[in-house]
């Protein structure tokens, strides 16, 4: 996979008078797993919408390989960057295979529909995520974790280098959260660049190579989780007091003090 670099430069966004993002800058490339930490309403989704070209920032820019996302036509943008929404329930029940096949739409130009080649790609994407056995099941009949994996397979079928994931573990049970995150981590080891948002600091310690913490629309920390996520930062982010403990294996865990 050739690396697409993504540069967010001095990004500011406001809804009316309400400033949501205030001079956010960072960059990511080459198989990084960037975890965006922040409380509800801090602007994580807005940041993602700006990166995906769905929202236009008032100041600053998002550059993909040096070119602003606003200048990409929808189809070219889709070939560079994919989006994995929270697992949802669409109006109509599609088979898991059809859902993944939709990811290949940007690869077939103009008015054509995916053909045998794209079906092969969808097949491979299902295999990479490890859900080939679900291919004929209805998307509305599988579990939340399986839906999330289906959406990740769809992003792989899109063949973009960068994948934006909006809280991939929201609404999932404990086991599914860990399974989905482990799968995402494996994919970044294969060269995929992933930017995902999360509420859970433990997930950042467990899986993220890098953490970007947003407080009040500003970047409060950017770096390796072990280095930048402190008890003070978690207090600033979520308003709760925690103690960070190091286990015998050297892993850091978050222990809430209630």
């Amino acid at each position, binding site marked *: 996979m050739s690396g697409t670099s993504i540069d967010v430069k001095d990004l500011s966004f406001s809804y009316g008078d309400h400033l949501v993002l205030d001079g956010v800058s960072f960059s990511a490339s080459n198989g990084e797993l960037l975890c965006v930490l922040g409380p509800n309403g801090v602007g994580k989704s807005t940041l993602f919408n700006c990166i995906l070209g769905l929202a236009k920032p008032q100041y600053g820019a998002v550059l993909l390989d040096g070119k602003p996302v606003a200048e990409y036509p*929808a*189809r070219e943008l889709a070939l560079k960057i*994919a989006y994995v929404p929270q697992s949802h329930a669409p109006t*109509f029940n599609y088979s898991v295979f059809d859902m993944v096949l939709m990811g290949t739409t940007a690869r077939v130009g103009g008015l054509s529909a995916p053909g045998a080649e794209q*079906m092969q790609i969808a097949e491979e994407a299902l295999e990479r995520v490890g859900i080939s056995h679900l291919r004929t099941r*209805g998307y509305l009949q599988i579990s939340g974790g399986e839906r999330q994996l289906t959406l990740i397979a769809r992003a792989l079928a899109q063949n973009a280098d960068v994948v934006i994931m909006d809280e991939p573990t929201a609404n999932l049970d404990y086991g599914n959260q860990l399974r989905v995150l482990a799968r995402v981590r494996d994919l970044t080891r294969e060269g995929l660049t992933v930017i995902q948002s999360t509420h859970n600091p433990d997930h950042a310690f467990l899986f993220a190579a890098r953490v970007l913490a947003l407080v009040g629309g500003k970047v409060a920390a950017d770096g390796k989780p072990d280095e930048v996520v402190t008890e003070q930062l978690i207090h600033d982010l979520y308003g709760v007091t925690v103690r960070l403990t190091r286990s015998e294996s050297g892993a850091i865990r978050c222990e809430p003090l209630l």
Partner: protein
Amino acid sequence: MRATEKQKLRGYSLLVAVMAAILVVCVLISFALGRFPISPRELLTALGEKLFKLEKSADITEQLRAILFNVRLPRVLLACMVGCCLSVAGAAYQGVFQNPMAAPDILGASSGAAAGAALAILLELSAKMVMLFAFGASLLTISLVMLISNSARGNRVLRIILAGIMVSSLCNAATSFIKLVADPNDVLPEITFWLMGSLSKTKPENVLFAAFPMAIGLIPLLLLRWRINLLTLSDSEARSMGVNVSFVRVTVIVCATLVTAASVSVSGLIGWVGLVVPHLMRRLVGNNYRHLLPASMLGGAIFLLIVDNVSRNLLKTEIPIGILTSVIGAPFFIWLITRKKETV
């Protein structure tokens, strides 16, 4: 492509072939039904001599030719065309509005056509003008809906549907007013009959009139049908997968409206087809629009042709087809909402 995909594709191809065969059989039966039955042999002979400009066969009377070409053939064709278009429009609207209950009249195309037709009948214009008024008023209504929805605020899909409800309501008020002032002896019954929907007055020029806008609308819908799948998801998902969401949505709405307007202007208000047929087809071929739209075209044609045959043959006098589609459609929907969960 793995074996299961091939199997599925083969199943779909088989279904399309079977439905096409059923349609052909239904067409042949339709000619044989009625006060002047036309056998398949007579039909083919008459068609052959017309198409290939052969000598007129002595077996066929001029009366039979007149009935075949001026009455039966246009009516059979129109029933197929209208059924096909209303079903496709219903399926398309359901997709772009992410609403399984959307029908071809959701944006007011039918209400607009009804007001236009009622006005033309009130002014005692010719049948041709009634058709043109209905078509024009229908398109005007949708333009108004799109114009209003563009300047309204909020969720785009909701805006269009709300604008549609408002404008339809206005059109219905206009139709009611026209009925109020219409002469109850001759004009009012004619308006009422038009509103009930019927193919009984079909003439060759109706078919020719409707064919052009129907073709113009159907072709883009068929070309865009894979992309309609993506529009049934959220806009941000569809866009992030490389679909120009607003362009595809507006194109689909315009095309679906065009075929609806063309249908309504020649047939009056025929309800339920656009709701019942797509849902039946979803059960048979799944929700993938790549298979759903062609299946709906065939299914709609078969359905309306059969219903029209019932409407003209069941009783001595015609039963307006709109009444029959409601009689079939409503129980179907009761079944649909009470059945077990849908599977792919």
